[in-house]
C-alpha cells in the first residue's frame, strides 16, 4: 500500500485517491472551438514514461490538487494546491 500526500490531509492510503488527468490540460474557452481542439482536450493525454505532472482528487476530503510523480518507479516528488487558474 502506497501513501500519497494530500496537501490538505497529509499522507493517506493510495486507495483514497482518484486520477484526474494531466496538469495543465485546460478547457478551451470561447465559442469557436473546433472539434479537434475539443477532442484533444477531452481525450489526448501526455501519458509520460517518467516524470509526470497530474491532477488528482483526494476523494475523502473532495479536494483536487497537483501531484508530480514518476510513472516508472511510482515515487511522488511533490503535491500542492492548485493555482487559481487551474481550478
Amino acid at each position, binding site marked *: *500500500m502506497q501513501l500519497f500526500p494530500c496537501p490538505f490531509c497529509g499522507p493517506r492510503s493510495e*486507495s483514497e485517491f482518484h486520477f484526474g488527468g494531466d496538469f495543465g490540460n485546460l478547457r478551451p474557452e470561447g465559442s469557436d472551438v473546433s472539434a479537434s481542439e475539443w*477532442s484533444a482536450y*477531452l481525450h*489526448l*493525454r501526455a*501519458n509520460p514514461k517518467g516524470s509526470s505532472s497530474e491532477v488528482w482528487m483526494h476523494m475523502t476530503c473532495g479536494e483536487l490538487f497537483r501531484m508530480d510523480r514518476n510513472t516508472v518507479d511510482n515515487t511522488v516528488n511533490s503535491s500542492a494546491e492548485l493555482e487559481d487558474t487551474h481550478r
Partner: protein
Amino acid sequence: MTRHYSALSLLKEGLNDQRGWQKAWRSPEPAGRYDLIIIGGGGQGLATAYYLAKNHGITNVAVIERGWLGGGNTGRNTTVVRSNYFFPESVALYDMSLKLYEKLSLELNYNVMLSQRGMVNLAHSPNDLEMAARAVNAMQINGVDASLLSEAETRDLMPLYNDSPTARWPIYGSVLQKRAGTARHDAVAWAYARAADRLGVDIIQNCDVTEFIVENGRCRGVRTSRGDIRAERVGMAVAGHSSALAAKAGFRLPIVSYALQACVSEPIKPALDCIVLSPSTGVYASQSDKGEMVIGGGLDRIPSYGQRGNLPVLEHIISGLLEMFPSFRQLRLMRQWAGIVDVVPDSSPILGESPVPGLYLNCGWGTGGFKAIPAGGTLLAHLLATGTHHEVSRPFDLDRFARGRLIDEAAGSGIAH
C-alpha cells in the same frame, strides 16, 4: 534439418536424439533498409509480419523488438479469446479474430492449444439478468453464438460456486459464449514468429527503437540501439508504450497506461471447466491445462509504467474470487505479475495512420488484445501494404475521437477484458 512439426518428425527426432531440429526462427543482423518495419515483437506485431507475407506477398519486412518475443503483454495475459461484444463494429473485428484462431494451429503448423471451453458472464440480480438478455440479443443479431443460461444451467457448469443463501453475489443466470476459450499465449507469439521467419521476414530482438526518421513530414524509418533502419512505411504495435513512442514522433494519443495484474494458484485437479467472469467483482478465472487457477480482475487505478501492479487491487481481486468460490481459500498463489496496458476512453483499439504520414498504429487494446492478435495483425498488414483501411478497421481509426464516433464497449458489453 527438421522444420515441419508432426507426429512423424517427433518420432524421427526422438530416434535422432533431438539433434536435427531447425531453429524456429533466425536471428539476423538488421539490414539498413526494408520495405516495411513493424515496431514491437508481441503477438500483434508478429501477426502483422506474417499476414504481410501471406496475404500481400511482402516479405522484405523487419519486426523490431526491444526485449524478447512475447515478453510484453502477450506473454503476461490470461489468454481468454472470445467475441462476445456489443457493437457490430466490435463483433466484426473480434469474430474475425476468433475465426482465424479456430484454424491457426493447422495454418501455422504450431499447436496454440486453443481450448474452446466456453465463457460464462454471470448475472447477479434480476436487473443483471435483463442486461444479460440484451447482450445475448445483440450478439445473436450480430451473428455470434450466445445463449442465456438459467441459474441451474449456470451452476451445473461451476459446482464450486458459492451457493450460500447469504452469498453477496448470487447467480440469477448468465450469458454463455460457447466458442470462447483460451489459447497458449507464448505459442501464439512463437507460431507467428516462426511462420513469418519462414516466409522471409527478419525478426530482430534486443533492438530498442529510440527515435523516428521523419523527412518532409513523412516517417521514413527508425533510429534504434542497433543503428538506423529505413523503410517506406512503419507500423507500431507496442501496447502500453504507445504514448512514449508517439511522443518521439511528436503527437499525443488518447491513451493512459496502467498496470493490469493477474495471478495463478498451485495446480489442482480439474475444478472449473469454463471461463467465468463476474461483472460485479470484475474477477474472472479459468483453469489452465496444468491445473492452475488463472485469476484476473480490473485495472490498477494509478497510471503506471512499473510492471508490478499494486497491492490494493490484488486484494480486491482475491476477495472477489473468494466470495465467488469460497473453497479456493485453500489454494496457495504461486505467481503474481502485471503488464502495462494501453487504455483508451471507449475501450476499443486504435487502428490506422498516425498524425505523422507513413507511421501506422495498432494500439489501444488495453486489457483485451490477445484475443484480437490474428485480426489486429491482418488489419495492420492491410494498412501497411495498401495505405488504406480494411472495412473492418475503418471504424477504429484515430479520427473517431474528433468525429464523436466512439465505440464504447465498456458501456456496451460492460466487460473490461
